[in-house]
């Protein structure tokens, strides 16, 4: 190896030799640094050259540090020049919008049409999600000032309260379908989706056990209902 690096010096440097200065400055990748370390451990001549490089490295830093710093004049000149600039360039966000506009302008009409369709679909999905959140947060028709916002007034109607159920809707249920179901059953959502279950209240009048069982059975038969369990 010693002979090899000497020979290299006479001809052309080896890859490892050329990496030594970067190793001294700590700018090599972990892989290259490992290669250099291994070569240094094997080749004393290379290690001697590395010691010379460390000296050059230290003195280059010393030399540059001795150059001092610019005077305040440079900064004054810069900020005076900035103040003298006519108007600030458009903001970064505007430049971004220009880039985005440029991007869309570069698309073919067919690509643009597909993108628009996908965008419309995304908007519909987004509307669905927003609707679901709104419906989920909707409480009963009226509340008193003394009542907690989370507690629907219907809960305080006494033992003869209308029937309630915990319902889990199918994941692909659309807001329009859920709204239609609520209308059909004269139901309202009285509690949010805890564990994916909504608490529904049906009508304003109490029902018998048989009526409730029939109601649950009908609900279970709905396409968009995965689970319906009567609750007190």
């Amino acid at each position, binding site marked *: 190896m010693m002979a090899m690096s000497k020979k290299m010096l006479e001809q052309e440097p080896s890859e490892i030799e*050329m990496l030594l200065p*970067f190793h*001294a400055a700590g700018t090599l990748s972990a892989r290259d640094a490992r290669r250099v370390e291994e070569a240094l451990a094997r080749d004393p001549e290379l290690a001697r050259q590395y010691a*010379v490089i460390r000296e050059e490295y230290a003195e280059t830093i*010393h030399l*540059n540090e001795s150059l001092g710093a*610019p005077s305040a004049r440079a900064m004054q000149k810069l900020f005076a020049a*900035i103040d003298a600039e006519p108007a600030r360039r458009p903001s970064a966000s505007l*430049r971004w919008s220009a880039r985005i506009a440029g991007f869309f302008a570069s698309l073919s009409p067919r690509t643009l049409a597909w993108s628009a369709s996908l965008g419309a679909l995304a908007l519909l999905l987004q509307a669905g999600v927003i609707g679901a959140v709104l419906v989920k947060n909707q409480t009963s028709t009226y509340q008193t000032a003394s009542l907690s916002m989370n507690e629907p007034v219907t809960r305080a109607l006494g033992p003869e309260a209308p029937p309630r159920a915990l319902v889990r809707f199918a994941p692909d249920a659309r807001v329009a379908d859920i709204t239609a179901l609520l209308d059909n059953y004269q139901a309202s959502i009285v509690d949010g989706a805890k564990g994916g279950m909504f608490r529904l209240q049906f009508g304003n009048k109490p029902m018998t056990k048989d009526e409730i069982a029939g109601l649950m059975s009908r609900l279970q038969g709905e396409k968009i209902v995965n689970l319906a369990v009567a609750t007190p």
Partner: protein
Amino acid sequence: MQVLYGRHHVRVFRFGLRLVRDEQVAEDLISEVFLDVWRQAGKFEGRSAVSTWLLAITRFKALSALRRRKDGELDDEAANAIEDTSDNPEVAVQKKDTSEALRKCLTALTPEHREIVDLVYYHEKSVEEVAEIVGIPENTVKTRLFYARKKLAELLKAAGVERGWP
């Protein structure tokens, strides 16, 4: 801008000064560099470090400044400007100050060699970053630095300093 200036202006100044070898020109250079940065902030694509971008602009501005003046005139002026009271390499060696001699020889390198030595050792730029700043292939960065170091060794040898390499 003040934060950016505060963080980078000294290194930009030193890099520029080592290239143009004139403090007034180097100071003008940093004003121009940061004004350009202020004007073109939107063009910075974030693919490289800000310091790499700044050094590339500084180098471009420094070379433009050098081109605006006659080379000979600049070299004479520059030599006068950087002349200090310290010893030349030979005298430094006689006084057994190898470090001083090494620094003198680093100053005596050609601009092409100086910039690559500074970028790697002082500005701690990687092969890829130096290639980006100087605008040369990565392999050329490595070979150019190697030959800069060889030249440095020759200058030191001429000044009577033997370091055991090459």
